[in-house]
């Protein structure tokens, strides 16, 4: 009996905080827009009993989903989100791996401090950090001033309100999620493995590709998913740093909910986004499981 309660704990949590909210969103996505509070029909009313319930289900339809296929804004937004998330993930990997590698090879005494430095930005508000990038990237911002002062450019560059600013923002924000799992896998790497590879005829560079990278693979995959999944639905960074033509599904979702007050379409957008995310999440969990099996 106690065992049952222990096991049911997490499921209960998932039910309350994931499955029921998802059910509500799914229900709204099948409803129709209406000028009322809340702004959709039908509403679930238990007072009319069985007949009321039947009428409720009869009124649900897939109209919002059909709408998503009719306007090319939506699939373009999904596609562009996947593209931005994928490129940002790659950028995070390119920036994060060398940092993680340097941390793992730093003297033992430095490592806690380096780890601290990676985590430190989380102590300030995410919103403020993204705002700070506006000050850096704008035409009169620090970056342009620095480049002009160095004589590298004569005219200020337009970075803010472009996709490049979005890439910079996402890479900056999510880099720690890439660094930490890679660092964890590199730190466990036994230095004598690299010596053994060298002893058996590898150059240092070859040993890096044949030993270090394969052994950090699990960390790299974990880091990529940890960046890709939140970046896909990112809303704050594209709306603050991106331009009017930066198309991301998070922004579309926001517009549908708050500007258009079209809750059913917004919910449909959210449900599709979730379905897109399910694929990488399942892959991620399979990776984790494989890694755990390998360690046993």
């Amino acid at each position, binding site marked *: 009996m106690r065992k049952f309660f222990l096991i049911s704990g997490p499921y209960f949590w998932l039910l309350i905080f994931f499955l029921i909210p998802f059910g509500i969103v799914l229900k709204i996505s099948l409803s129709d827009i209406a000028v009322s509070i809340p702004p959709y029909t039908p509403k679930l009313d238990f007072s009319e009993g069985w007949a009321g319930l039947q009428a409720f289900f009869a009124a649900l339809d897939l109209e919002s989903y059909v709408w998503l296929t009719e306007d090319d804004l939506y699939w373009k937004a999904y596609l562009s989100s996947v593209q931005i998330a994928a490129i940002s993930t790659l950028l995070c990997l390119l920036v994060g791996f060398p940092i993680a590698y340097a941390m793992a090879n730093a003297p033992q005494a430095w490592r806690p401090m380096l780890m601290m430095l990676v985590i430190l930005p989380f102590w300030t508000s995410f919103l403020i950090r993204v705002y700070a990038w506006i000050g850096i990237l704008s035409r009169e911002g620090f970056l342009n001033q620095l480049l002009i002062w160095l004589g590298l450019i004569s005219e200020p560059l337009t970075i803010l309100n472009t996709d490049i600013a979005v890439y910079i923002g996402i890479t900056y924000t999510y880099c720690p999620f890439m660094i930490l799992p890679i660092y964890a896998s590199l730190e466990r790497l036994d230095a*004598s*493995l690299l010596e053994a*590879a060298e002893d*058996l*005829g590898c*150059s240092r560079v*070859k040993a890096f590709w044949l030993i270090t990278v394969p052994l950090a693979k699990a960390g790299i995959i974990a880091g990529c998913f940890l960046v890709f999944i939140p970046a896909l639905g990112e809303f704050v960074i594209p709306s603050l740093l991106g331009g009017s033509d930066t198309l991301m599904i998070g922004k579309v979702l926001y517009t549908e909910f708050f500007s258009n007050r079209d809750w059913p379409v917004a919910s449909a957008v959210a449900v599709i986004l979730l379905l897109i995310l399910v694929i990488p999440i399942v892959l991620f969990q399979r990776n984790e499981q494989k890694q755990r099996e390998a360690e046993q």
Partner: protein
Amino acid sequence: MTDASAPFAPWDDPNETPLISIKGVSKRFGDFTALNNINLSIYTREFFALLGPSGCGKTTLMRMLDGFEHPSSGTITIDGQDMAGVPPNKRAVNMMFQSYALFPHLSIWDNIAFGLRRDGMPKDQMAARVEEMLRLTRLESFVRRKPHQISGGQRQRVALARSLAKAPKLLLLDEPLGALDKKLRQETQFELMDIQETTGTTFVIVTHDQEEAMTVASRVAVMGQGTLAQVDTPDRIYEVPADTYVADFIGEISLIPARCTGLSEGIARVSWSEDHPEILCSAQGGTVVDQACTFAIRPEKVSISSERTTAPNCLPGKIIDIAYTGNLSTYKVELATGQMISAQVANTARVANRPFTWEDAVWLSWSDTAGLCLPG
């Protein structure tokens, strides 16, 4: 070797050129001198042991042979080639690591083939070579497994197979049996010797276990504090230690400070106490009359009796301690002057019939060649 019946002793043959010669090698880490002016020659097909306590520099010396450390001064030549500036991956030297350092993401087969792949060996030749290594180390049934799926003893054999696969001129073994339990370690020692003989590879083993070094090696270098204390065959290291450090490090020995008073036909007379007769013992090359020396004797060379004997050396004493180790009993006997001498007796009879016990007055006796007169 010109004569097949002659014992393997290239170090005694002046015409033999050593495979490895280490000349005047020193290594300093900042203020710390890890190795101080090491001179050593190691010959082809030798099984050479570097033996010493931790921190004596044996691992540093071995890592120099593999190219992971570089001498601060002096030269190392392997097969006539000066090794200065030659990186580890360009040396015909392979190492079996203490931790085995098997690649966890590769199967046993791929681990063994790793070095061959780097050499770009053709596929069929490589497969044949890996098979040969697997047969040699009796690992045929584990090829598809990953290192974490096999036992410690099997991992040790994979590490050996991997380091032998490239047929190196020199194989270095860093505490190869340290992680195995005692029984398996003893079995593996003989296996190592067989494999060394079969492949004809020159082995250099680093160990702090003197029994291991004595069992496997053709010659042993006893190291202490960054210097070579003695380089010799195991029996000579044990029977004719160069000094008190080697004598004390290898096996058990009783040491008594004394003074040499006479020397004739290899037998030295040493005076160690004013009230007792002088001891007769074997003289060493360095024994000088009228100089301070140390009388040394191994416990198994001392016999213990309740009556005085007619042996050349016979001293009375009292049993202070008895160490029972199953096959042997070691009696720690205190002489009248307070010095201790150990005597070892094989337990041919049951312990219950033991003739001596604590506090018994006994006589210790030994022959005139049993003891040694060590310098200093």
